[in-house]
């Protein structure tokens, strides 16, 4: 049985998760704990004139007037022309979206805290709300931040246009709108804060992806030193980007704990999640593609808008989605003319933050819709057009026209495998006859590259106030020969307790049950920007590898002495220091080091068996996994309902540390992508009021809507990373909308109608079919 790199080891953490023994923020119980409920803005845009607090609640309700020494959250990347937003912890002056927090109410139970919140009344002078990203850019639009003069956070542009394409044989233009939706981790946000008198710090237990960034953010807002703040991120039930920011509630609760002297807690409820606490994915594309008659792509022009919401979140910033659109829209394709403007627009809605795949599900849909349209004009299979525009494998590594460095792989082979697995040929045959149940079937394939594990330079250019650099890991041998790994990254579903152990096992050979991973506490782990952007296995795993290698060298030195040979003659494997036929266990090495130091040589490294090492990939432009998603769908033309009949993912994720966990990542991501494609949208009315407050009004795909996803792997190592690992946590969520849209439109192809706006609701599909109905046959 193999346990190292490449083994599908059962996740160590699953034992506690599956038995209900995980420890989440909501599971912490402590003496004197009180609960918090917030008074939130009922309107999207208004001047806040007064907060009226009944006299009897004076001592348990707090507003901006109380938080005088607390600084607002500012996330202003050093980008030219970026307009700053300052997000007050509790609203002051103006409210800029429904759900913005205005007052904080504390009581022994949440129900009582909500009673108090109910009794607080607001004097609001309503202002016209900016609710549409395109209208927000029109002259004369109301302004979210008056001092800006317009509603644009920042604009990114690319302009590489060498040829005159006015005579191109094929020119196609598409307008695409993707829906604003929620991220819906199983566990919402939650915060417990208290003063730890023994450690003399403020301790904040929060459901976050990155405890150190929260620590830095709290330090900036509260004026405390890092040493005065400890952030613990315990078990976290899914992040997906939703927990990759400093949220106001964390600052507010931290302040409250210091003020009140007893522990306080806030747990996000479903209504807060749906209506108030960050959305994702809302883009608009006006995109044009030029191609030769035989489907060779010549150029892409695009104007894209991102509805970034009212504030720039810390530290992701409102710039990242627009930056990615301008930067990643060319996708996997080879062409020479590219023009793109991408604007991050402020509106009176809650902030948009990067969700799994960040902007790329929209980007993939936009470029793939163009490829499909070119295929129709050229009279070719959509996959054939894609194949004609891909990087040939012999040209890898390849720099695309924006100098994106595709590190390795064989894109055409990946696509060919998907075509074969979904069996396009057989589907084309089946489509020649009507389905017995009256439905129409269609096939769609999307292809994309997934830049992951981005390094410092890439992220600095997209704009972030906190830019990741080197990742560190501390690895030590305990006195009884077990291994303890301390990392700054945070696993909230990724299975790092298992995969990091596999990396250390690969190098040290210690049984993975004897390797413990410690994470999620600023007191015990190296500072890290932690886990997002598919970076942990490359950077964190790289650091674990380096530290394990260093530890192996230290152990080898002691082991060689014990074996009475030179260090050049030994190597570490299978939990032993080995010299030819003789060996000494790491357990014995550890015992001597910790308990019998009199038996050590004089010149032994006094650093011992507890090491910290850092890692940065040989090239930090990011790894490029890639995948083809193929969907076979049935569209019921009478009801507009779409069923997914078959779904294939062919993915090249580089060297896979744990293929079973990778399959889980792909399945989970694909389920979310199906949500983006078919179901998920937070509806808003014209006044900026979100209309979903329970899961009755907000649909996520469930067990019966997610098909059995067939996953096929390719494994081309990255030439630049430890073990050739690539980042692949997000791709699953990127491909589905484009594949499903393509498949649905394939099903409707003989009606000559097309649906591109997300999600593909029955209403949209029926409306499209309606346009194809002959006049007079009204319904």
């Amino acid at each position, binding site marked *: 049985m193999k346990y190292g790199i490449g083994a599908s080891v059962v996740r160590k953490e699953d034992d506690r998760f599956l038995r209900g023994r995980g420890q989440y923020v909501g599971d912490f119980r402590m003496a004197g704990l009180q609960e918090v409920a917030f008074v939130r803005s009922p309107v999207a845009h208004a001047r806040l004139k007064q907060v009226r607090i009944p006299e009897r609640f004076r001592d348990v309700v707090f507003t901006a007037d109380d938080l005088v020494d607390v600084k607002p959250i500012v996330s202003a990347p050093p980008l030219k022309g970026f307009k700053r937003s300052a997000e007050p912890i509790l609203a002051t002056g103006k409210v800029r979206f429904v759900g913005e927090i205005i007052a904080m109410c504390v009581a022994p139970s949440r129900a009582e805290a909500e009673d108090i919140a109910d009794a607080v009344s607001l004097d609001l002078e309503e202002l016209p709300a900016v609710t549409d990203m395109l209208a927000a850019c029109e002259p004369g639009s109301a302004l979210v931040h008056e001092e800006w003069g317009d509603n644009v956070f920042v604009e990114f542009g690319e302009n590489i246009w060498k040829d005159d394409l006015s005579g191109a044989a094929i020119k196609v233009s598409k307008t695409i709108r993707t829906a604003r939706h929620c991220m819906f981790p199983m566990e919402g946000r939650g915060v417990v804060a208290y003063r730890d008198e023994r450690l003399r710090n403020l301790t904040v237990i929060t459901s976050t992806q990155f405890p150190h960034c929260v620590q830095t953010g709290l330090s900036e807002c509260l004026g405390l030193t890092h040493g005065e703040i400890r952030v613990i991120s315990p078990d976290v039930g899914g992040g997906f980007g939703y927990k990759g920011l400093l949220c106001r509630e964390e600052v507010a609760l931290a302040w409250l704990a210091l003020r009140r002297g007893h522990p306080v807690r806030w747990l996000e409820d479903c209504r807060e999640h749906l209506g108030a606490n960050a959305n994702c994915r809302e883009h608009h594309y006006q995109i044009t593609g030029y191609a030769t008659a035989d489907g060779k792509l010549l150029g892409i022009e695009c104007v894209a808008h991102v509805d970034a919401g009212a504030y720039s979140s810390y530290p992701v910033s409102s710039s990242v989605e627009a930056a990615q659109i301008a930067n990643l829209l060319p996708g996997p394709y080879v062409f020479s003319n590219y023009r793109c403007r991408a604007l991050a627009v402020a509106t009176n809605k809650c902030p948009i933050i990067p969700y799994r795949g960040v902007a790329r599900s929209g980007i993939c849909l936009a470029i793939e819709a163009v490829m499909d349209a070119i295929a129709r004009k050229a009279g070719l299979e959509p996959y054939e057009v894609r194949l004609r525009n891909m990087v040939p494998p012999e040209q890898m590594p390849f720099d695309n026209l924006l100098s994106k460095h595709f590190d390795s792989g064989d894109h055409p082979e990946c696509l060919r495998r998907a075509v074969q697995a979904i069996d396009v040929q057989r589907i084309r045959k089946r489509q020649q006859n009507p389905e017995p149940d009256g439905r129409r079937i269609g096939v769609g394939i999307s292809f994309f590259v997934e830049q992951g594990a981005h390094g410092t330079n890439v992220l600095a250019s997209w704009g972030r106030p906190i830019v990741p650099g080197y990742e560190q890991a501390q690895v030590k041998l305990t006195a009884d020969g077990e291994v303890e790994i301390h990392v700054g990254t945070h696993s909230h579903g990724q299975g790092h307790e298992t995969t990091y152990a596999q990396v250390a096992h690969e190098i040290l050979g210690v049984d993975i049950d004897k390797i413990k991973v410690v994470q999620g506490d600023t007191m015990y782990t190296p500072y890290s920007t932690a886990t997002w952007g598919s970076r942990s296995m490359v950077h964190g795993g790289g650091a674990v590898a380096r530290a394990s290698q260093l530890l192996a060298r230290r152990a080898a030195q002691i082991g060689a002495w014990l074996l009475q040979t030179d260090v050049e003659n030994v190597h570490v494997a299978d939990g032993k220091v080995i010299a030819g036929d003789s060996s000494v266990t790491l357990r014995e090495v550890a015992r001597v080091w910790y308990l019998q130091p009199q038996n050590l040589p004089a010149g032994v490294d006094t650093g011992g068996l507890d090491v910290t090492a850092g890692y940065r990939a040989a090239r930090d432009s990011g790894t490029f996994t890639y995948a083809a998603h193929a969907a076979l769908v049935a569209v019921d033309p009478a009801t507009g309902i779409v069923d997914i009949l078959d779904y294939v993912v062919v993915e090249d994720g580089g060297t896979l540390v744990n293929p079973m966990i990778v399959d889980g990542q792909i399945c989970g991501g694909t389920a979310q992508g199906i949500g983006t494609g078919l179901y998920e949208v937070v509806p808003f009315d014209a006044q900026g009021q979100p209309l979903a407050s329970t899961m009755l009004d907000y649909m996520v*795909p*469930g067990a019966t809507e997610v098909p059995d996803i067939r996953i096929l792997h390719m494994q081309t190592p990255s030439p630049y990373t430890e073990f050739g690992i690539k980042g692949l946590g997000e791709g699953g969520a990127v491909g589905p909308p484009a594949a499903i849209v393509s498949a649905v439109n394939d099903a409707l192809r003989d009606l000559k109608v097309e649906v591109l706006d997300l999600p593909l609701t029955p*209403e949209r599909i029926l409306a499209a079919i309606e346009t194809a109905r002959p006049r007079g046959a009204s319904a």
Partner: protein
Amino acid sequence: MKPASFEFVRVTSVAEASRQLKQANGTARLVAGGQSLGPMLNLRLARPALLIDITGIPDLIEAHGGEDAVTVGACVTTAAIEDKRLPGRGLESLASVAMNIAYRAVRNRGTIGGSLCHADPSADWVTTLCALDAQCLIASEQGNRIVPAHQFIRGAYENALAPDEVLTAIKIPRLSARGRFGYYKVCRKAGEFASAMAAVVHDPDRGVYRAVIGATRGKPILIEDARELQQPTGKLNEMSALQILESRGIASSSARRQQLAALSRAFAQATLQ
């Protein structure tokens, strides 16, 4: 999302429930399974001063079979119906309706009477019981009365109960041996509320041919004589169905399309072979 404070009482007789309702003077709500009222309490959309739990009233949790009808206590759960615990024959199709309502966890608690009283236009029991011409048995301290389901539902979330009245049971006529029940709902995902639904009861031996269209914005649409929907061939006349839908206020074309699909499929199921 925690409810505002309320008093709670669990009663053991209909008379006591009625008395409590009367005393509370409009500030009390009955609760059975709580599958609709619970979320409304949590969202503070409902703020009763008193909740009266009627699931402890023995008569309300029983179903009794008669020759021509089954009388189902208002607090019989959807799960019990799914599990075919209604006595006798002629209403087997109710089990399949039940099986597709929400999720088992909801069905375990949710009751047939509670669903009817809640009068959500998209509720399966509302459409089904109107189609079957079920009778609602209502009691209060003043006495008893019987109201047909289609009159019991007054509109969206509106029922015919007076403030002190309790729906005690629903009497559902059995289909004869040749009778057919057709039912179809349009749902984007399993367990969700439907965006369109139709039920058709075709039972010539009892002289019944009724169709009901549910998931509207108000009262279900009742077509008492479904022959008016029929072509001479026996198939659904889509044009006249669309006209009915339009004249009964189904305004959007996509909603009409979906309702037409539901009706035509329910119609086909109810067509005698």
